[in-house]
Protein backbone atom coordinates (compact mmCIF):
# COMPACT_ATOMS: atom_id res chain seq x y z
CA UNK A 1 0.00 0.00 0.00
CA UNK A 2 1.02 3.58 -0.47
CA UNK A 3 -0.25 7.10 0.04
CA UNK A 4 -1.49 9.41 -2.68
CA UNK A 5 -0.16 12.98 -2.51
CA UNK A 6 -2.43 15.62 -4.00
CA UNK A 7 -1.50 19.25 -4.54
CA UNK A 8 -3.80 22.19 -5.04
CA UNK A 9 -3.46 22.23 -8.85
CA UNK A 10 -4.53 18.61 -9.20
CA UNK A 11 -7.39 19.12 -6.75
CA UNK A 12 -8.65 22.18 -8.65
CA UNK A 13 -8.72 20.19 -11.87
CA UNK A 14 -10.97 17.41 -10.60
CA UNK A 15 -13.50 19.21 -8.42
CA UNK A 16 -16.81 19.91 -10.13
CA UNK A 17 -18.84 22.35 -8.03
CA UNK A 18 -22.16 20.63 -8.75
CA UNK A 19 -20.72 17.40 -7.37
CA UNK A 20 -19.16 19.16 -4.38
CA UNK A 21 -22.64 20.43 -3.50
CA UNK A 22 -23.95 16.86 -3.67
CA UNK A 23 -21.12 15.69 -1.40
CA UNK A 24 -21.92 18.44 1.10
CA UNK A 25 -25.59 17.47 1.00
CA UNK A 26 -24.69 13.83 1.72
CA UNK A 27 -22.54 14.93 4.66
CA UNK A 28 -25.34 17.03 6.16
CA UNK A 29 -27.81 14.19 5.62
CA UNK A 30 -25.40 11.88 7.47
CA UNK A 31 -25.30 14.29 10.40
CA UNK A 32 -29.09 14.29 10.53
CA UNK A 33 -29.27 10.52 10.31
CA UNK A 34 -26.53 9.94 12.88
CA UNK A 35 -24.05 8.28 10.53
CA UNK A 36 -21.32 10.91 10.87
CA UNK A 37 -18.88 10.82 13.79
CA UNK A 38 -17.38 14.22 14.46
CA UNK A 39 -15.88 15.16 17.83
CA UNK A 40 -15.53 18.90 18.53
CA UNK A 41 -12.46 20.40 16.83
CA UNK A 42 -9.53 21.33 19.06
CA UNK A 43 -7.68 24.57 18.77
CA UNK A 44 -3.90 24.98 19.11
CA UNK A 45 -3.35 28.66 19.83
CA UNK A 46 -0.07 30.14 18.71
CA UNK A 47 -0.71 33.65 19.86
CA UNK A 48 -4.04 34.00 18.08
CA UNK A 49 -4.49 37.43 19.64
CA UNK A 50 -0.87 38.38 19.97
CA UNK A 51 -0.01 36.50 23.18
CA UNK A 52 2.97 34.09 23.43
CA UNK A 53 4.36 32.83 21.05
CA UNK A 54 3.10 35.97 19.27
CA UNK A 55 2.37 34.54 15.83
CA UNK A 56 -1.24 35.77 15.51
CA UNK A 57 -2.26 32.31 14.46
CA UNK A 58 -4.01 29.16 15.54
CA UNK A 59 -4.57 25.69 14.14
CA UNK A 60 -7.66 23.53 14.30
CA UNK A 61 -7.52 19.74 14.29
CA UNK A 62 -10.77 18.49 12.77
CA UNK A 63 -11.25 14.72 12.66
CA UNK A 64 -14.37 13.11 11.18
CA UNK A 65 -15.92 9.95 9.82
CA UNK A 66 -18.67 10.06 7.18
CA UNK A 67 -20.28 6.68 6.71
CA UNK A 68 -22.14 7.23 3.45
CA UNK A 69 -18.96 8.41 1.70
CA UNK A 70 -16.68 5.89 3.43
CA UNK A 71 -14.53 8.83 4.45
CA UNK A 72 -12.34 9.11 7.55
CA UNK A 73 -9.55 11.52 8.33
CA UNK A 74 -8.44 14.80 9.82
CA UNK A 75 -8.00 18.33 8.57
CA UNK A 76 -5.22 20.36 10.19
CA UNK A 77 -6.15 23.93 9.34
CA UNK A 78 -4.49 27.13 10.43
CA UNK A 79 -5.63 30.73 10.33
CA UNK A 80 -2.99 33.46 10.52
CA UNK A 81 -4.49 36.91 10.96
CA UNK A 82 -1.41 38.85 9.85
CA UNK A 83 -0.65 36.75 6.76
CA UNK A 84 -2.92 38.69 4.37
CA UNK A 85 -1.07 41.94 5.02
CA UNK A 86 2.14 40.13 4.04
CA UNK A 87 0.45 38.91 0.86
CA UNK A 88 0.21 35.37 2.26
CA UNK A 89 -2.92 33.26 2.61
CA UNK A 90 -4.99 33.57 5.80
CA UNK A 91 -6.03 29.90 5.74
CA UNK A 92 -3.51 27.07 5.36
CA UNK A 93 -4.65 23.49 5.62
CA UNK A 94 -3.57 19.93 5.02
CA UNK A 95 -5.79 16.84 5.08
CA UNK A 96 -4.88 13.26 5.94
CA UNK A 97 -7.45 10.85 4.55
CA UNK A 98 -7.47 7.30 5.95
CA UNK A 99 -9.04 3.96 5.21
CA UNK A 100 -12.06 3.88 7.51
CA UNK A 101 -11.43 0.43 8.97
CA UNK A 102 -7.62 0.21 9.11
CA UNK A 103 -6.54 3.81 9.62
CA UNK A 104 -4.05 3.48 6.76
CA UNK A 105 -3.26 6.94 5.35
CA UNK A 106 -4.59 6.67 1.79
CA UNK A 107 -3.90 10.31 0.95
CA UNK A 108 -2.22 13.49 2.15
CA UNK A 109 -3.56 16.53 0.34
CA UNK A 110 -3.73 20.26 0.31
CA UNK A 111 -6.73 21.37 2.34
CA UNK A 112 -6.96 25.06 1.42
CA UNK A 113 -8.87 24.64 -1.82
CA UNK A 114 -11.10 21.93 -0.37
CA UNK A 115 -11.93 24.26 2.54
CA UNK A 116 -12.96 27.01 0.15
CA UNK A 117 -15.03 24.70 -2.04
CA UNK A 118 -16.87 22.98 0.81
CA UNK A 119 -17.72 26.31 2.42
CA UNK A 120 -19.43 27.42 -0.79
CA UNK A 121 -21.06 24.02 -1.19
CA UNK A 122 -22.45 24.15 2.36
CA UNK A 123 -24.08 27.51 1.56
CA UNK A 124 -25.70 26.02 -1.51
CA UNK A 125 -27.09 23.12 0.52
CA UNK A 126 -28.42 25.51 3.15
CA UNK A 127 -30.02 27.70 0.48
CA UNK A 128 -31.57 24.70 -1.26
CA UNK A 129 -33.56 23.92 1.89
CA UNK A 130 -33.98 27.38 3.36
CA UNK A 131 -34.30 29.94 0.55
CA UNK A 132 -37.67 30.97 -0.88
CA UNK A 133 -38.85 29.36 -4.11
CA UNK A 134 -37.06 30.62 -7.22
CA UNK A 135 -34.86 33.20 -5.54
CA UNK A 136 -33.95 35.90 -8.04
CA UNK A 137 -31.54 38.15 -6.19
CA UNK A 138 -28.35 37.27 -4.35
CA UNK A 139 -26.52 39.78 -2.17
CA UNK A 140 -22.94 39.12 -1.11
CA UNK A 141 -20.92 41.09 1.40
CA UNK A 142 -17.18 40.57 1.10
CA UNK A 143 -15.57 40.03 -2.31
CA UNK A 144 -12.85 37.51 -1.49
CA UNK A 145 -12.18 33.86 -2.32
CA UNK A 146 -15.14 32.70 -0.25
CA UNK A 147 -17.51 34.98 -2.11
CA UNK A 148 -16.38 33.44 -5.40
CA UNK A 149 -16.92 29.92 -4.10
CA UNK A 150 -20.34 30.86 -2.75
CA UNK A 151 -21.57 32.34 -5.97
CA UNK A 152 -20.29 29.35 -7.95
CA UNK A 153 -22.01 26.90 -5.63
CA UNK A 154 -25.29 28.85 -5.38
CA UNK A 155 -25.28 29.24 -9.17
CA UNK A 156 -25.45 25.43 -9.44
CA UNK A 157 -28.70 25.40 -7.48
CA UNK A 158 -30.47 28.60 -8.62
CA UNK A 159 -30.78 30.94 -11.60
CA UNK A 160 -30.31 34.43 -10.28
CA UNK A 161 -31.45 37.48 -12.20
CA UNK A 162 -29.15 39.71 -10.25
CA UNK A 163 -26.14 39.39 -7.95
CA UNK A 164 -25.10 42.41 -5.88
CA UNK A 165 -21.71 42.57 -4.30
CA UNK A 166 -20.48 44.96 -1.60
CA UNK A 167 -16.97 45.23 -0.18
CA UNK A 168 -15.27 47.88 1.95
CA UNK A 169 -12.88 48.09 -0.99
CA UNK A 170 -15.06 49.06 -3.94
CA UNK A 171 -12.35 48.19 -6.47
CA UNK A 172 -12.42 44.59 -5.19
CA UNK A 173 -16.19 44.49 -5.61
CA UNK A 174 -15.93 45.82 -9.18
CA UNK A 175 -13.27 43.30 -10.06
CA UNK A 176 -15.41 40.53 -8.57
CA UNK A 177 -18.44 41.56 -10.63
CA UNK A 178 -16.48 41.59 -13.90
CA UNK A 179 -14.89 38.23 -13.15
CA UNK A 180 -18.12 36.51 -12.17
CA UNK A 181 -20.08 37.93 -15.13
CA UNK A 182 -17.46 36.50 -17.40
CA UNK A 183 -17.21 33.11 -15.67
CA UNK A 184 -20.84 32.42 -14.88
CA UNK A 185 -22.80 34.80 -17.06
CA UNK A 186 -24.65 36.10 -14.01
CA UNK A 187 -25.74 39.68 -13.85
CA UNK A 188 -23.34 40.70 -11.07
CA UNK A 189 -22.88 44.31 -10.07
CA UNK A 190 -20.85 46.08 -7.45
CA UNK A 191 -22.81 48.29 -5.07
CA UNK A 192 -21.58 51.12 -2.87
CA UNK A 193 -22.90 50.13 0.52
CA UNK A 194 -23.98 46.94 2.26
CA UNK A 195 -27.59 48.07 2.44
CA UNK A 196 -27.84 48.04 -1.36
CA UNK A 197 -26.68 44.44 -1.43
CA UNK A 198 -29.24 43.43 1.18
CA UNK A 199 -32.50 45.27 0.45
CA UNK A 200 -34.72 43.25 -1.83
CA UNK A 201 -32.34 40.28 -1.95
CA UNK A 202 -33.75 36.78 -1.49
CA UNK A 203 -30.43 35.36 -0.26
CA UNK A 204 -27.80 37.37 1.58
CA UNK A 205 -24.35 35.91 2.26
CA UNK A 206 -21.74 37.47 4.54
CA UNK A 207 -18.19 36.29 3.92
CA UNK A 208 -15.90 38.76 5.62
CA UNK A 209 -13.52 38.76 8.57
CA UNK A 210 -15.35 41.70 10.14
CA UNK A 211 -16.41 41.66 13.76
CA UNK A 212 -19.18 44.22 13.45
CA UNK A 213 -22.78 44.19 12.23
CA UNK A 214 -22.75 44.47 8.43
CA UNK A 215 -26.39 43.54 7.85
CA UNK A 216 -29.27 45.14 9.76
CA UNK A 217 -32.54 43.41 10.50
CA UNK A 218 -34.67 46.26 9.12
CA UNK A 219 -33.04 45.95 5.71
CA UNK A 220 -34.43 42.45 5.23
CA UNK A 221 -37.54 41.75 3.19
CA UNK A 222 -39.97 39.00 4.19
CA UNK A 223 -38.77 35.70 2.79
CA UNK A 224 -35.07 36.55 3.04
CA UNK A 225 -32.43 33.96 3.88
CA UNK A 226 -29.32 35.29 5.60
CA UNK A 227 -26.24 33.07 5.54
CA UNK A 228 -23.45 34.03 7.92
CA UNK A 229 -20.31 32.05 7.19
CA UNK A 230 -17.18 31.44 9.21
CA UNK A 231 -16.00 32.37 12.67
CA UNK A 232 -16.91 36.06 12.82
CA UNK A 233 -19.83 38.19 13.97
CA UNK A 234 -21.22 39.96 10.93
CA UNK A 235 -24.91 40.39 11.67
CA UNK A 236 -27.13 42.75 13.62
CA UNK A 237 -27.97 40.64 16.67
CA UNK A 238 -31.67 41.03 15.93
CA UNK A 239 -31.26 38.82 12.88
CA UNK A 240 -30.35 35.60 14.72
CA UNK A 241 -32.47 36.58 17.73
CA UNK A 242 -35.64 37.51 15.84
CA UNK A 243 -35.48 35.43 12.68
CA UNK A 244 -38.43 33.08 12.20
CA UNK A 245 -35.97 30.23 12.04
CA UNK A 246 -32.38 30.08 13.27
CA UNK A 247 -30.32 27.24 11.81
CA UNK A 248 -26.67 26.26 12.43
CA UNK A 249 -24.33 23.62 11.02
CA UNK A 250 -23.34 22.44 14.51
CA UNK A 251 -24.76 23.79 17.76
CA UNK A 252 -21.92 22.62 20.03
CA UNK A 253 -19.40 24.48 17.91
CA UNK A 254 -21.59 27.58 17.73
CA UNK A 255 -21.25 27.93 21.49
CA UNK A 256 -17.45 28.33 21.08
CA UNK A 257 -17.00 30.52 18.02
CA UNK A 258 -18.79 32.23 15.17
CA UNK A 259 -21.80 34.45 14.78
CA UNK A 260 -23.67 33.33 17.89
CA UNK A 261 -21.02 32.93 20.57
CA UNK A 262 -21.28 36.50 21.93
CA UNK A 263 -25.07 36.24 22.15
CA UNK A 264 -24.83 32.90 23.93
CA UNK A 265 -22.22 34.22 26.37
CA UNK A 266 -24.35 37.29 27.05
CA UNK A 267 -27.30 35.03 27.91
CA UNK A 268 -29.40 36.42 25.04
CA UNK A 269 -29.51 33.17 23.09
CA UNK A 270 -29.82 29.53 24.10
CA UNK A 271 -30.53 26.23 22.47
CA UNK A 272 -34.29 26.59 22.90
CA UNK A 273 -34.18 29.44 20.36
CA UNK A 274 -32.46 27.30 17.76
CA UNK A 275 -34.79 25.88 15.14
CA UNK A 276 -32.41 23.07 14.22
CA UNK A 277 -29.15 21.95 12.70
CA UNK A 278 -28.92 21.89 8.93
CA UNK A 279 -28.37 18.12 8.97
CA UNK A 280 -31.75 17.53 10.63
CA UNK A 281 -33.42 19.52 7.88
CA UNK A 282 -31.57 17.80 5.02
CA UNK A 283 -32.38 14.39 6.56
CA UNK A 284 -36.07 15.33 6.64
CA UNK A 285 -36.38 15.26 10.41
CA UNK A 286 -37.39 18.91 10.47
CA UNK A 287 -39.02 21.02 7.80
CA UNK A 288 -36.91 23.59 5.98
CA UNK A 289 -38.64 26.73 4.77
CA UNK A 290 -42.40 26.49 5.12
CA UNK A 291 -43.62 29.68 3.41
CA UNK A 292 -42.42 32.64 1.37
CA UNK A 293 -42.59 35.12 4.23
CA UNK A 294 -40.30 33.53 6.82
CA UNK A 295 -37.00 35.23 7.53
CA UNK A 296 -34.42 32.52 8.09
CA UNK A 297 -30.91 32.97 9.46
CA UNK A 298 -28.34 30.20 9.02
CA UNK A 299 -24.90 30.38 10.65
CA UNK A 300 -22.40 28.00 9.13
CA UNK A 301 -19.02 28.05 10.84
CA UNK A 302 -17.68 25.07 8.90
CA UNK A 303 -17.42 21.47 10.01
CA UNK A 304 -14.62 18.95 9.53
CA UNK A 305 -16.94 16.30 8.13
CA UNK A 306 -17.40 18.44 5.01
CA UNK A 307 -13.63 18.55 4.50
CA UNK A 308 -13.19 14.83 4.95
CA UNK A 309 -16.18 14.03 2.74
CA UNK A 310 -14.89 16.34 0.01
CA UNK A 311 -11.35 14.97 0.37
CA UNK A 312 -12.68 11.45 -0.21
CA UNK A 313 -14.52 12.67 -3.32
CA UNK A 314 -11.25 14.18 -4.60
CA UNK A 315 -9.34 11.01 -3.75
CA UNK A 316 -11.77 8.83 -5.69
CA UNK A 317 -11.26 11.02 -8.75
CA UNK A 318 -7.47 11.00 -8.50
CA UNK A 319 -6.68 7.49 -7.36
CA UNK A 320 -6.59 5.80 -10.76
CA UNK A 321 -4.72 8.56 -12.57
CA UNK A 322 -1.25 7.76 -13.89
CA UNK A 323 0.36 11.14 -13.27
CA UNK A 324 -0.18 11.16 -9.54
CA UNK A 325 2.54 11.10 -6.91
CA UNK A 326 2.56 8.32 -4.37
CA UNK A 327 4.71 7.86 -1.31
CA UNK A 328 5.14 4.91 1.00
CA UNK A 329 5.04 6.11 4.61
CA UNK A 330 4.77 2.53 5.85
Amino acid sequence: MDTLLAGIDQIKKVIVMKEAVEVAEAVFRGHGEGTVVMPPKINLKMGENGEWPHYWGSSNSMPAYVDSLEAMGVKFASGYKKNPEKGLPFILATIILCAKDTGYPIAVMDGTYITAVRTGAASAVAAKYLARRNPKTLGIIGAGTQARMNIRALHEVFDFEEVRIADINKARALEFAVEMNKELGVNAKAVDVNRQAVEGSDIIVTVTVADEPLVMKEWLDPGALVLSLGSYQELDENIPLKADKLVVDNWEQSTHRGELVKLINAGKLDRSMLYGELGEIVAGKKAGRENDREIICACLIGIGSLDIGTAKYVYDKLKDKDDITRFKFY
Partner: protein
Amino acid sequence: MKEVVEIVDRTSKDLGVGKTINPTKVLLDLGETAAYPPYSGFMNAMPAYIGWEDSAGIKWAGGFLGERKALGFPYITAMILLIDPKLGFFRAAMDGAYITNMRTGAQTASALKYLVNKKKIKLGLYGAGMQGHTQTQAISVLFDIDELRVYDVNRQASEKFAQDMKDVVKGKIIIADKPEDAAQGDVIVCVTQSKDKFLKNEWIKPGTVVFPMGSYQECDDEFILSADKIIVDCIGQVMHRGALRGLVEEKKLSEKNITCTIGEMAAGLKEERIQKDERILCLPIGTGAMDVAVATVVYNKAVEKGIGGKFAFV
Protein backbone atom coordinates in the same frame (compact mmCIF):
# COMPACT_ATOMS: atom_id res chain seq x y z
CA MET B 1 17.51 6.60 21.14
CA LYS B 2 19.94 8.66 23.20
CA GLU B 3 18.87 11.76 21.29
CA VAL B 4 15.17 10.91 21.59
CA VAL B 5 15.57 10.67 25.38
CA GLU B 6 17.21 14.11 25.38
CA ILE B 7 14.46 15.62 23.20
CA VAL B 8 11.72 14.17 25.38
CA ASP B 9 13.44 15.35 28.55
CA ARG B 10 13.87 18.86 27.19
CA THR B 11 10.25 19.01 26.01
CA SER B 12 9.10 17.73 29.39
CA LYS B 13 10.91 20.64 31.08
CA ASP B 14 9.18 23.07 28.71
CA LEU B 15 5.81 21.53 29.50
CA GLY B 16 6.55 22.08 33.18
CA VAL B 17 7.13 25.81 32.70
CA GLY B 18 4.46 26.42 30.08
CA LYS B 19 6.74 26.86 27.08
CA THR B 20 4.99 24.12 25.16
CA ILE B 21 1.33 24.24 24.12
CA ASN B 22 -0.34 20.87 24.21
CA PRO B 23 -4.14 20.91 24.03
CA THR B 24 -5.95 17.77 25.20
CA LYS B 25 -6.07 15.28 22.33
CA VAL B 26 -9.38 14.71 20.57
CA LEU B 27 -10.67 11.18 20.05
CA LEU B 28 -12.47 9.88 16.98
CA ASP B 29 -13.97 6.62 18.24
CA LEU B 30 -14.50 4.16 15.40
CA GLY B 31 -15.78 1.30 17.45
CA GLU B 32 -13.04 0.92 20.05
CA THR B 33 -15.60 1.55 22.78
CA ALA B 34 -18.46 3.13 20.83
CA ALA B 35 -21.17 0.90 19.39
CA TYR B 36 -20.91 2.65 16.01
CA PRO B 37 -19.15 2.45 13.56
CA PRO B 38 -17.98 -1.18 13.84
CA TYR B 39 -14.24 -0.90 13.05
CA SER B 40 -12.76 -1.85 16.45
CA GLY B 41 -10.53 1.16 16.27
CA PHE B 42 -9.91 4.78 17.16
CA MET B 43 -7.93 7.76 15.95
CA ASN B 44 -6.54 10.62 18.04
CA ALA B 45 -5.65 14.10 16.81
CA MET B 46 -2.77 15.42 18.92
CA PRO B 47 -1.57 18.93 18.05
CA ALA B 48 1.27 20.75 19.81
CA TYR B 49 3.57 23.76 19.69
CA ILE B 50 7.12 23.24 20.96
CA GLY B 51 8.74 26.36 22.36
CA TRP B 52 12.40 25.32 22.40
CA GLU B 53 12.25 24.10 18.80
CA ASP B 54 9.82 26.78 17.65
CA SER B 55 7.88 24.13 15.79
CA ALA B 56 4.24 23.05 15.55
CA GLY B 57 2.32 20.11 14.19
CA ILE B 58 -0.08 17.30 14.79
CA LYS B 59 0.15 13.59 15.30
CA TRP B 60 -2.81 11.69 13.88
CA ALA B 61 -2.60 8.26 15.40
CA GLY B 62 -4.78 5.36 16.30
CA GLY B 63 -5.12 1.65 16.71
CA PHE B 64 -7.27 -0.89 14.91
CA LEU B 65 -7.99 -4.55 15.40
CA GLY B 66 -10.24 -6.19 12.83
CA GLU B 67 -9.40 -5.43 9.21
CA ARG B 68 -6.00 -3.92 9.99
CA LYS B 69 -4.92 -6.99 11.89
CA ALA B 70 -6.16 -9.19 9.04
CA LEU B 71 -3.87 -7.28 6.65
CA GLY B 72 -0.90 -7.97 8.90
CA PHE B 73 -0.27 -4.36 9.95
CA PRO B 74 0.82 -3.51 13.50
CA TYR B 75 -1.92 -2.29 15.84
CA ILE B 76 -0.78 1.34 15.80
CA THR B 77 -1.04 3.63 12.78
CA ALA B 78 0.33 7.15 12.93
CA MET B 79 1.17 10.12 10.75
CA ILE B 80 2.77 13.40 11.78
CA LEU B 81 2.35 16.75 10.02
CA LEU B 82 4.63 19.69 10.79
CA ILE B 83 4.00 23.34 10.03
CA ASP B 84 5.97 26.53 10.31
CA PRO B 85 4.43 28.07 13.45
CA LYS B 86 5.15 31.65 12.33
CA LEU B 87 3.12 31.62 9.12
CA GLY B 88 1.32 28.30 9.17
CA PHE B 89 2.97 26.84 6.08
CA PHE B 90 3.16 23.09 5.68
CA ARG B 91 6.60 21.62 6.35
CA ALA B 92 6.44 17.84 6.38
CA ALA B 93 4.35 14.69 6.50
CA MET B 94 5.96 11.61 7.97
CA ASP B 95 5.22 8.23 9.45
CA GLY B 96 4.56 8.56 13.16
CA ALA B 97 4.50 4.97 14.39
CA TYR B 98 8.26 4.57 14.81
CA ILE B 99 8.49 7.96 16.49
CA THR B 100 5.64 6.97 18.81
CA ASN B 101 7.44 3.82 19.88
CA MET B 102 10.72 5.63 20.45
CA ARG B 103 9.26 8.56 22.37
CA THR B 104 7.11 6.28 24.53
CA GLY B 105 10.24 4.50 25.70
CA ALA B 106 12.00 7.81 26.19
CA GLN B 107 9.15 9.14 28.33
CA THR B 108 9.67 6.37 30.86
CA ALA B 109 13.41 6.93 30.93
CA SER B 110 13.03 10.69 31.32
CA ALA B 111 10.50 10.31 34.15
CA LEU B 112 12.71 7.79 35.94
CA LYS B 113 15.53 10.30 35.95
CA TYR B 114 13.50 12.31 38.48
CA LEU B 115 12.05 9.37 40.40
CA VAL B 116 14.97 7.14 41.40
CA ASN B 117 18.27 7.90 43.09
CA LYS B 118 20.47 5.22 41.69
CA LYS B 119 22.25 4.53 38.44
CA LYS B 120 21.88 0.74 38.62
CA ILE B 121 18.32 -0.53 38.59
CA LYS B 122 16.43 -3.80 38.48
CA LEU B 123 13.56 -3.83 36.00
CA GLY B 124 10.38 -5.91 35.73
CA LEU B 125 8.80 -5.85 32.28
CA TYR B 126 5.36 -7.02 31.13
CA GLY B 127 5.06 -7.32 27.37
CA ALA B 128 8.00 -8.39 25.22
CA GLY B 129 6.84 -6.81 21.95
CA MET B 130 8.03 -3.72 20.14
CA GLN B 131 7.27 -1.44 23.08
CA GLY B 132 9.07 -3.78 25.46
CA HIS B 133 12.17 -3.37 23.30
CA THR B 134 12.04 0.42 23.05
CA GLN B 135 11.29 0.83 26.77
CA THR B 136 14.35 -1.25 27.59
CA GLN B 137 16.56 0.61 25.10
CA ALA B 138 15.48 4.00 26.41
CA ILE B 139 15.91 3.12 30.08
CA SER B 140 19.38 1.74 29.32
CA VAL B 141 20.40 5.13 27.93
CA LEU B 142 20.16 6.66 31.40
CA PHE B 143 20.55 3.60 33.66
CA ASP B 144 22.45 0.36 33.95
CA ILE B 145 19.87 -2.39 33.99
CA ASP B 146 21.30 -4.78 36.55
CA GLU B 147 18.58 -7.38 36.16
CA LEU B 148 15.55 -7.62 33.90
CA ARG B 149 12.62 -9.96 34.48
CA VAL B 150 10.31 -10.22 31.50
CA TYR B 151 6.85 -11.78 31.29
CA ASP B 152 4.78 -12.20 28.15
CA VAL B 153 1.72 -14.40 27.59
CA ASN B 154 3.65 -15.68 24.60
CA ARG B 155 6.86 -17.25 25.90
CA GLN B 156 8.48 -17.19 22.47
CA ALA B 157 8.17 -13.42 22.47
CA SER B 158 10.07 -13.32 25.78
CA GLU B 159 12.79 -15.56 24.37
CA LYS B 160 13.20 -13.37 21.31
CA PHE B 161 13.27 -10.30 23.55
CA ALA B 162 16.02 -11.83 25.71
CA GLN B 163 18.07 -12.55 22.60
CA ASP B 164 17.52 -9.06 21.10
CA MET B 165 18.30 -7.20 24.33
CA LYS B 166 21.28 -9.15 25.63
CA ASP B 167 23.74 -6.38 24.72
CA VAL B 168 21.46 -3.60 25.92
CA VAL B 169 20.84 -5.02 29.38
CA LYS B 170 24.03 -5.05 31.50
CA GLY B 171 22.83 -7.74 33.89
CA LYS B 172 20.85 -10.91 33.54
CA ILE B 173 17.56 -11.27 31.62
CA ILE B 174 15.21 -13.67 33.37
CA ILE B 175 12.15 -15.03 31.57
CA ALA B 176 9.31 -15.28 34.07
CA ASP B 177 6.99 -18.25 33.85
CA LYS B 178 4.30 -16.73 36.02
CA PRO B 179 3.20 -13.09 35.95
CA GLU B 180 4.07 -12.49 39.62
CA ASP B 181 7.70 -13.51 39.01
CA ALA B 182 8.31 -10.36 36.94
CA ALA B 183 6.96 -8.02 39.60
CA GLN B 184 10.37 -7.55 41.21
CA GLY B 185 12.75 -4.67 40.94
CA ASP B 186 13.02 -0.94 41.40
CA VAL B 187 10.88 -0.31 38.37
CA ILE B 188 7.98 -2.21 36.78
CA VAL B 189 6.98 -1.33 33.24
CA CYS B 190 3.79 -2.69 31.63
CA VAL B 191 3.45 -2.45 27.86
CA THR B 192 0.59 -4.83 27.15
CA GLN B 193 -2.87 -4.57 25.61
CA SER B 194 -4.37 -6.23 28.66
CA LYS B 195 -7.76 -5.18 29.96
CA ASP B 196 -7.82 -7.60 32.90
CA LYS B 197 -5.84 -5.79 35.62
CA PHE B 198 -3.23 -8.54 35.92
CA LEU B 199 -0.73 -6.62 38.06
CA LYS B 200 -1.77 -7.27 41.66
CA ASN B 201 -1.35 -4.91 44.57
CA GLU B 202 0.24 -7.55 46.82
CA TRP B 203 3.05 -8.21 44.30
CA ILE B 204 4.34 -4.66 44.41
CA LYS B 205 6.88 -4.00 47.15
CA PRO B 206 7.71 -0.67 48.77
CA GLY B 207 10.38 1.24 46.87
CA THR B 208 8.94 0.42 43.46
CA VAL B 209 7.92 2.76 40.63
CA VAL B 210 5.24 1.27 38.38
CA PHE B 211 4.59 2.42 34.80
CA PRO B 212 1.38 1.01 33.32
CA MET B 213 1.91 2.20 29.73
CA GLY B 214 -0.93 0.37 28.00
CA SER B 215 -4.11 2.10 26.88
CA TYR B 216 -6.29 -0.17 29.01
CA GLN B 217 -6.20 -1.63 32.52
CA GLU B 218 -3.01 -3.35 33.65
CA CYS B 219 -2.95 -2.63 37.42
CA ASP B 220 -5.60 -3.72 39.86
CA ASP B 221 -7.66 -0.97 41.50
CA GLU B 222 -6.27 -1.67 44.95
CA PHE B 223 -2.74 -0.73 43.88
CA ILE B 224 -3.85 2.44 42.09
CA LEU B 225 -5.84 3.54 45.14
CA SER B 226 -3.07 2.70 47.62
CA ALA B 227 -0.07 4.07 45.70
CA ASP B 228 1.66 6.79 47.73
CA LYS B 229 2.08 9.07 44.74
CA ILE B 230 0.54 9.30 41.30
CA ILE B 231 2.69 11.21 38.80
CA VAL B 232 1.48 11.87 35.25
CA ASP B 233 2.49 13.69 32.07
CA CYS B 234 -0.79 15.47 31.40
CA ILE B 235 -3.51 15.69 34.04
CA GLY B 236 -6.43 16.32 31.69
CA GLN B 237 -5.54 13.34 29.60
CA VAL B 238 -5.06 10.67 32.27
CA MET B 239 -8.54 11.31 33.59
CA HIS B 240 -10.04 10.04 30.33
CA ARG B 241 -7.73 7.36 29.10
CA GLY B 242 -5.58 4.51 30.36
CA ALA B 243 -5.11 3.11 33.84
CA LEU B 244 -7.07 5.70 35.84
CA ARG B 245 -10.11 6.06 33.62
CA GLY B 246 -12.28 3.39 35.25
CA LEU B 247 -11.68 4.68 38.78
CA VAL B 248 -12.29 8.26 37.68
CA GLU B 249 -15.61 7.22 36.17
CA GLU B 250 -16.52 5.47 39.42
CA LYS B 251 -15.58 8.70 41.24
CA LYS B 252 -13.01 6.89 43.40
CA LEU B 253 -10.22 9.06 42.02
CA SER B 254 -9.95 12.66 40.85
CA GLU B 255 -7.41 15.28 39.84
CA LYS B 256 -6.78 15.86 43.55
CA ASN B 257 -5.07 12.47 43.77
CA ILE B 258 -2.38 13.49 41.26
CA THR B 259 0.85 14.41 43.06
CA CYS B 260 2.44 16.37 40.22
CA THR B 261 3.43 16.19 36.55
CA ILE B 262 6.65 14.85 35.10
CA GLY B 263 7.18 18.28 33.54
CA GLU B 264 7.12 19.93 36.97
CA MET B 265 9.80 17.51 38.20
CA ALA B 266 11.88 18.01 35.03
CA ALA B 267 11.68 21.78 35.41
CA GLY B 268 12.79 21.50 39.05
CA LEU B 269 9.48 22.83 40.39
CA LYS B 270 8.74 19.59 42.27
CA GLU B 271 10.99 17.02 43.93
CA GLU B 272 9.37 13.61 44.33
CA ARG B 273 12.17 11.02 44.37
CA ILE B 274 11.06 7.68 45.75
CA GLN B 275 11.54 6.83 49.43
CA LYS B 276 12.22 3.29 50.66
CA ASP B 277 8.70 2.84 52.03
CA GLU B 278 6.86 4.41 49.09
CA ARG B 279 5.21 3.00 46.02
CA ILE B 280 4.83 5.37 43.06
CA LEU B 281 2.48 5.04 40.12
CA CYS B 282 3.79 6.95 37.09
CA LEU B 283 1.69 7.48 33.96
CA PRO B 284 3.36 9.06 30.95
CA ILE B 285 0.36 8.34 28.75
CA GLY B 286 1.88 10.23 25.85
CA THR B 287 1.37 13.73 24.55
CA GLY B 288 1.41 15.10 21.04
CA ALA B 289 4.17 17.44 22.22
CA MET B 290 6.66 14.57 22.41
CA ASP B 291 5.78 13.37 18.92
CA VAL B 292 6.02 16.81 17.37
CA ALA B 293 9.30 17.49 19.21
CA VAL B 294 10.92 14.29 17.97
CA ALA B 295 9.45 14.70 14.46
CA THR B 296 10.97 18.18 14.24
CA VAL B 297 14.46 16.81 14.90
CA VAL B 298 13.82 14.08 12.33
CA TYR B 299 12.69 16.71 9.83
CA ASN B 300 15.75 18.89 10.42
CA LYS B 301 18.05 15.91 9.94
CA ALA B 302 16.22 14.77 6.81
CA VAL B 303 16.54 18.24 5.27
CA GLU B 304 20.22 18.41 6.15
CA LYS B 305 20.94 14.99 4.67
CA GLY B 306 18.55 15.23 1.73
CA ILE B 307 16.55 12.19 2.88
CA GLY B 308 12.89 11.74 1.93
CA GLY B 309 10.86 13.15 -0.94
CA LYS B 310 9.63 16.63 -1.71
CA PHE B 311 6.15 17.46 -2.85
CA ALA B 312 4.47 20.83 -3.39
CA PHE B 313 0.96 20.77 -1.95
CA VAL B 314 0.38 24.44 -2.76
